[in-house]
């Protein structure tokens, strides 16, 4: 039921709403769409918000424009899911001068002055990389292959994106702990299934002893699965497949036995951001860094969890 709002006399209604300008990256993946939906469902008028949504279509220029327009519209808060980490000084300075707090979602930004943003909400890509390696180590132990030579290939995301940079970094940081693992090759599959498939085909022809595929998102993992099948091998059995994001389709693949694990990257940032805004409204201090909860989902749990996946 509509929450009873103080002074809800219709006329001043708009004024009582907290206006949030939200500069989203785009709709380039299911993950992103789920992320958007999470905001759109959180910041509704019933909850006391008015959301001004801008979709940058993966272009930083567009986000910069959007923020400038938010400032002109005198919004109360700006939520920014930056396309890239660089180049935010100028426009965030303008927001600061206008006295509008900026909350970052998903990706971090690279600025020398921390005060340009109030808080950051997101997943930890590097940690996801760590989780991936740890899970693999555990799984190999389970299989009794802990001491074998293990050959790994990585399908990287779009080079330069924070997910790619973070996940690659996370995996690489943990690799030295396992001297018997070889990273045979890394190549970008640009986060898409078809590129992932094409690159995997090429890997399979170059190396005939691949044990593990780490795909930096689930879509590329699906492409890899097809390529492996085409090469006459059994994905999930002959070759261990790990993906990131844990979208619903990944659970389906795991249930089908084609995939072994997906590391979650939680898109539901909306409620967290609302929490921060509520605190700020009350005049409380907020922490800078807010991680969302993220898990690791192996195939063995897939069937159990699939119905509870919201995206």
């Amino acid at each position: 039921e509509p929450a009873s709002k103080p002074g809800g006399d219709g006329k001043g209604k708009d004024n009582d709403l907290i206006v949030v300008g939200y500069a989203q990256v785009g709709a380039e993946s299911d993950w992103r769409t789920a992320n958007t939906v999470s905001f759109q469902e959180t910041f509704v008028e019933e909850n006391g918000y008015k959301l001004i949504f801008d979709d940058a279509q993966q272009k930083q220029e567009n986000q910069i424009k959007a923020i400038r327009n938010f400032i002109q519209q005198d919004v109360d808060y700006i939520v920014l899911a930056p396309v890239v980490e660089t180049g935010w000084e100028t426009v965030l300075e303008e927001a600061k001068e206008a006295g509008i707090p900026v909350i970052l979602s998903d990706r971090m930004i690279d600025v020398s002055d921390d005060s340009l943003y109030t808080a950051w909400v997101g997943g930890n890509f590097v940690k996801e990389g760590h989780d991936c390696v740890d899970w693999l180590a555990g799984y190999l132990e389970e299989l009794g292959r802990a001491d074998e030579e293990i050959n790994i290939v990585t399908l990287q995301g779009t080079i330069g994106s924070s997910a790619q940079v973070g996940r690659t970094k996370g995996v690489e940081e943990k690799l030295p702990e396992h001297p018997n693992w070889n990273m045979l090759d890394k190549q970008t599959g640009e986060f898409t299934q078809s590129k992932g498939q094409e690159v995997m085909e090429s890997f399979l022809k170059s190396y005939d002893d691949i044990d593990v595929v780490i795909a930096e998102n689930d879509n590329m993992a699906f492409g890899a699965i097809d390529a492996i099948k085409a090469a006459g091998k059994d994905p999930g059995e002959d070759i261990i497949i790990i993906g990131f994001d844990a979208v619903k389709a990944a659970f389906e693949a795991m249930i089908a036995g084609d995939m072994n694990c997906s590391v979650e990257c939680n898109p539901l940032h909306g409620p967290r951001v609302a929490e921060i805004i509520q605190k700020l409204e009350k005049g409380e201090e907020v922490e800078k860094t807010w991680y969302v909860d993220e898990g690791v989902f192996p195939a063995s749990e897939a069937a159990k969890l699939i119905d509870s996946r919201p995206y």
Partner: protein
Amino acid sequence: MIRRFREKIDPNTFLLLITITLFVLMYIAGILIFRDKHFGRVQVFLNLFISNGGLIVAAVSMTMVLISGGIDISIGSVVAMTCMLLAWMMEKQNIGIIPAIIVVLIIGVIFGFFQGLLIAYLKIQPFIVTLAGMFFARGMTAIISTDMISIKNEAFLKIANAKLYFPFGGYVNRSGDIVYPYIYPSVVIGLVVLLLMFFVLKYSKFGRSIYAVGGNEQSALLLGLNVRLTKLKVYVLNGFFAALAGFVFCLNTSGGFVEQAKGFEMEAIASSVIGGTLLTGGVGNVIGSIFGVLIKGTIETFITFQGTLSSWWTKIVIAALLCFFIVLQSILGSSKDKKGKISKDH
């Protein structure tokens, strides 16, 4: 009535007037529709320039190339390469801002020179040459660095963030201060390039040769112009402007990354076309292109102010407005019966 008016002035001026009128109408509509959202503030208008400084340079340059009968679809990649190179030089190699800028401009010129050679002297189609150029520059960007590089160079940031205030048109912001409208130096660069090219195209031999070559290459040759050299110059200058556009773009985004400015060339082309430039060459002017940029910017501002459109609708709405514009121009501008038109030789 329109017909009579059209007979009086030449058709291209007529098209330009249409474009300008449409822009003004559109802007007024915006002010009325988004009354309560302060669309009418001077700063909203200036933001069109601030956010599109690089595009202004690129569109002006694109206009010149299109007038010459060519096309350049490598501009976006060159912009990305320039940003990356600037960032890499300043951040990773500790090169000062001035030498860095000089280097990227020189690289732009060399890049343009090679494209020009292939187009003018080997007569390879501009679309293909610049398509290769597009691939090349994008790939080079990745070769320079696959990581994002953020520019922290103080001198650079100082230029990027230097606000040039106007003494009027201010408004009171939420903290109670009066904010006067302002622009950044990048806007100034864009406007200088615009003025420069306006004069070059109208008042220099080189400029007129561009029109002649675009109008009919064979004729221009027979009339005694050096067609090849003209084209080469166009692409060299265009290379320079592409790099300059990269610099201006970089002032706005202060960083370099591989995916930067994707599709930028299409924006530049669209702006030129909205401004009345023909892709077939020989027709167009930079004033129109500026309005092309402003119209594109206004459409985007509409969408932000509207505030609920998701990505797909944004794309569709932009395309629909683009379509509306092009079709309207075509309908209003056409029906001039061209009699005894001189043949386009091959």
